């Protein structure tokens, strides 16, 4: 079964000194091989980092855009959850009025996307997309259902941990972030080369939401808290100012 051996997940050991960045050429995530941009990158002058990002208005948001359980005539199948948190600068200041977009699989681990052929049913009452603007405290809030795990073709018996994709803009264009939020205690996370591409376990933990009983609504939905901290730019490398 040498072939199976070769197809096992490649997970590099934890590296507590790796910092907040992902290892962009992480070999376990095979799609990086021919896609990651040619290195080294060119460093830009410092003034580049003050460039403002786009401003989004309330008109970008529909009434049920932040409630993924109410976008269809019926309710989706699955465990109803509330996911909320704040979008923050590294110095702790909240970022109000910024656009937060999410997308996810349904409770069975299937995306409403033509490329997803996972043999698990689509849910006619679940599209899996949401968006909202952060409030004055930088807070976002979504109601959704807990996404299922699903298999993918990266290696033999590869499964993604349960996750919600997040896209955030921030104040400045260098703060742009696309990431994934994971759930506490997911046994698949340690086998997942996308999660383990963040090699510092402390940094990896920053992608995991916290179950919160205060956010949980009795008789209705489990609550999770997850803050998102946007960098100032620089890819976690040495600051560019002299």
């Amino acid at each position, binding site marked *: 079964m040498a072939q199976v051996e070769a197809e096992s997940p490649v997970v590099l050991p934890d590296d507590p000194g790796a910092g907040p960045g992902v290892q962009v050429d992480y070999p376990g995530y095979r799609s990086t091989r021919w896609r990651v941009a040619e290195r080294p990158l060119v460093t830009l002058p410092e003034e580049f980092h003050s460039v403002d990002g*786009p401003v989004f208005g309330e008109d970008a948001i529909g009434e049920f855009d932040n409630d993924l359980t109410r976008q269809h005539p019926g309710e989706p199948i699955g465990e109803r959850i509330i996911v909320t948190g704040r979008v923050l600068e590294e110095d702790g200041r909240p970022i109000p009025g910024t656009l937060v977009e999410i997308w996810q699989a349904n409770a069975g681990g299937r995306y409403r996307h033509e490329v997803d052929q996972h043999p698990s049913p689509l849910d006619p009452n679940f599209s899996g997309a949401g968006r909202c603007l952060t409030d004055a405290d930088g807070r976002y809030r979504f109601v959704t259902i807990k996404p299922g795990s699903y298999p993918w073709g990266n290696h033999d018996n590869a499964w993604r941990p349960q996750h919600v994709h997040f896209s955030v803009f921030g104040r400045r264009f260098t703060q742009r972030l696309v990431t994934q939020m994971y759930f506490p205690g997911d046994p698949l996370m340690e086998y997942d080369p996308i999660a383990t591409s963040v090699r510092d376990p402390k940094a990896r933990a920053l992608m995991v939401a916290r179950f919160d009983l205060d956010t949980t609504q009795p008789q209705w939905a489990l609550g999770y808290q997850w803050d998102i901290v946007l960098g100032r730019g620089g890819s976690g490398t040495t600051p560019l100012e002299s």
Partner: protein
Amino acid sequence: MSLPRTPSQTVGPFYSIGLSRDPQNELADPRDPAAVRIVGVLVDGQDSPIPDGMVELWDAAGRRWGRSGTDSEGRFSFVVTKPDPLPGQAPRFDVLVFARGLLEHELTRVYFPDEAKANAADPVWSALDEKSRSTLVAEAENGALRFDIHMQGDRHTVFFVH
């Protein structure tokens, strides 16, 4: 206080559910006489098109923004008018590239072919060697501007730290 920043992860293959629900690739009105299309192909290190990528254009001077997913041939397209230049710089768009396989998005720029003088005076463009800077200038093609993005290889586009 300095909070640790949240790490980046890939957009994955299904981003269009959340990020391409509505067309957002018009930074200008197509009926504007000054409007021009920017079209291109996102290409991997084996010269294959990337069909599950997404490109964002940012106009820092005009605070305009747009994005385009790539199609099955790796093609993206925008309708734009040329941005105003920032002081001391050439007109350009900042370009962000997202895709399955990119754990963090990549940053590049597109400059305009009819701005040779301004480009030569641009502090970023002019600091690059000739081969590198040529990867950042769109080409006039059939009334549109062609800007292909090569992630790797001999003809790789220049990418910047962000």
